[in-house]
């Protein structure tokens, strides 16, 4: 549905988007993930024909954004970062204006307005002035204007930014419910959002695509590198930590047992495993051997850490290390 090849955007002094390429299939929800200033908005603006690329090509539904912008625009619904609302207009009047602008007319127009009002749950603010709406409603009216002409592709720039948790959930559910009819690209810098709404993730940083994968694969990747932190205590204040280390290392699936901290009565181990569920085996082994299991805590690489690792962020420290530095 969307095909981007070597797309580049140069501003006067900076390279905002640097030869990025990706494909989005019909009906997919794709999350565009990256820190602020990574080039998400610029890429989306090029796809919606708001900006012209410096080089490279992008096609939406088979139409090139440079050669056939009108055809592309007909097939795209776009919600910019701040909803493009005219403060002085009434909701219904605004939707009617946008509908006409997108080529709707006759009996179809009121029907579509009715439909999007119901879909986005904005029926009760139909006769209110847009400038007086709350942030959540403004966002939903923004979504309503994006889908009013039933576009093939929906491009949503940070649809949940600035909303409260309840509104975020509502917006996510709404976006998910739209997935069946539209191909959706949404940008965000919040990982859990991608986990909850998207099937496919494109991670972008400093204008470059650094990973394209399905959410499931990324999560698997995160779990694959699971590590567990175990604090073992000995009876009568004595503990043979070398023995514990050896014993734990024998558990199938455990790759490596590292001694993190050791004292007279307790020792902290970090256990790296290839298998996902070694925690049960660990607990059983420790207890059966007669030691005390003081603490068992997974320090699994979350999607968050993978993201930080991929984007090369300095703060990609594991929670353990972070704690040690605090001490």
């Amino acid at each position, binding site marked *: 549905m969307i095909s981007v090849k070597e797309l580049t955007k140069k501003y006067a002094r900076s390279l905002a988007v640097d030869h990025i390429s990706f494909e989005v299939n019909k009906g997919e929800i794709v999350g565009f993930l990256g820190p602020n200033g990574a080039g998400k908005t610029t890429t989306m*603006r090029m796809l919606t024909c*708001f900006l012209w690329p410096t080089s490279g090509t992008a096609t939406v539904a088979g139409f090139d954004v440079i050669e056939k912008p009108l055809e592309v*625009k007909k097939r795209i619904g776009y919600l910019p970062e701040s909803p493009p609302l005219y403060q002085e*207009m009434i909701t219904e009047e605004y939707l009617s204006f946008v509908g006409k*602008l997108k080529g709707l007319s006759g009996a179809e127009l009121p029907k579509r307005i009715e439909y999007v009002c119901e879909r986005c749950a904005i029926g009760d603010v139909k006769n209110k002035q847009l400038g007086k709406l709350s942030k959540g409603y403004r966002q939903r009216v923004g979504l309503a204007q994006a889908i009013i002409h039933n576009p093939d592709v929906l491009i949503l720039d940070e649809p949940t930014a600035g909303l409260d948790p309840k509104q975020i959930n509502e917006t996510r559910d709404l976006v998910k419910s739209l997935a069946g009819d539209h191909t959706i690209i949404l940008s965000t810098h919040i990982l859990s959002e991608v986990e909850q709404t998207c099937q496919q993730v494109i991670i972008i940083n400093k204008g470059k695509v650094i990973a394209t994968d399905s959410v499931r694969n990324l999560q698997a990747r995160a779990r694959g590198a699971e590590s567990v932190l175990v604090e073992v205590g000995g009876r009568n204040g004595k503990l043979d930590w070398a023995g514990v280390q050896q014993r734990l290392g024998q558990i199938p699936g455990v790759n490596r047992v590292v001694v993190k901290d050791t004292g007279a009565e307790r020792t902290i181990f970090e256990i790296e495993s290839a298998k996902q569920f070694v925690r049960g085996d660990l607990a059983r082994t420790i207890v059966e051997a007669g030691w005390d299991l003081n603490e068992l805590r997974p320090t699994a690489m979350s999607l968050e850490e993978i993201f930080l690792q991929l984007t090369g962020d300095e703060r990609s420290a594991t929670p353990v290390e972070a704690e040690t530095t605090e001490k």
Partner: protein
Amino acid sequence: MRNIWIICRKELGTYFVSPIAYLLLAMFAIIFGFFFWNSLGYFVYLGMQSQMRGQPFPMNLNEQIVRPLLSNVGVIGLFFIPMITMRLFAEEKRSGTIELLTTSPVRDVEVIIGKWLAAVVLYACLLLVTALNFLFLFKYGNPDWKPIAIGYLGLLLQAGSLLAIGTFISTLTKNQIIAGAVTFGVLLLLWVLEWVSGYETATWAKALAYMSVITHFESFAKGVLESKDAIFYATLIFLGLFFTARSVESLRWRS
């Protein structure tokens, strides 16, 4: 065509829903009303004088009231036009709604012409208010209506060109105040360019005076339809809108 009309309707809606249009109408009516009352008073005074002297000199409504007043409408317009055009694009850029317009399946030209047309329609409404004053002349005298009609055509053309310039300036900034102030400065300059012809007869002075927007109105004020003056205004409208289009296009290169 349809898209131009959609944009134009929306802009007119904005003007007439907010107090802008009514405020402008009221101010225009008051100021022009004062001008009209003054010039009528002077006309009556002259008439009485001519009677007292016993030797009546020619009195003509068209020459003595309509013609100077029509030129004055242009001057009032000079102050009002920046207020009409300053928000056209600056406001869209500030509020981000420009993203809606430029990502909708409409051509930039249609958006620009639609907006400009709305400004022209609003200005025509202001002119209509002034025309009400002239109706009194028809009640108590019998002025020739044709020069008045041509004068109004000239006013509309003149305003059209100034509105086009204002529309262009509005695309250059996000700030309405800046757009308004710069527009006023530019229009004032275009207005007074003609002054150089008062003391200088070199070619450059003639060229400069030719650029002035008032020299081309004189024929219309007299009630004469001069094609070269009409073409001057039409060219200015075209240039203004052309530069607007270039400016809007350049937004797609920058952010």
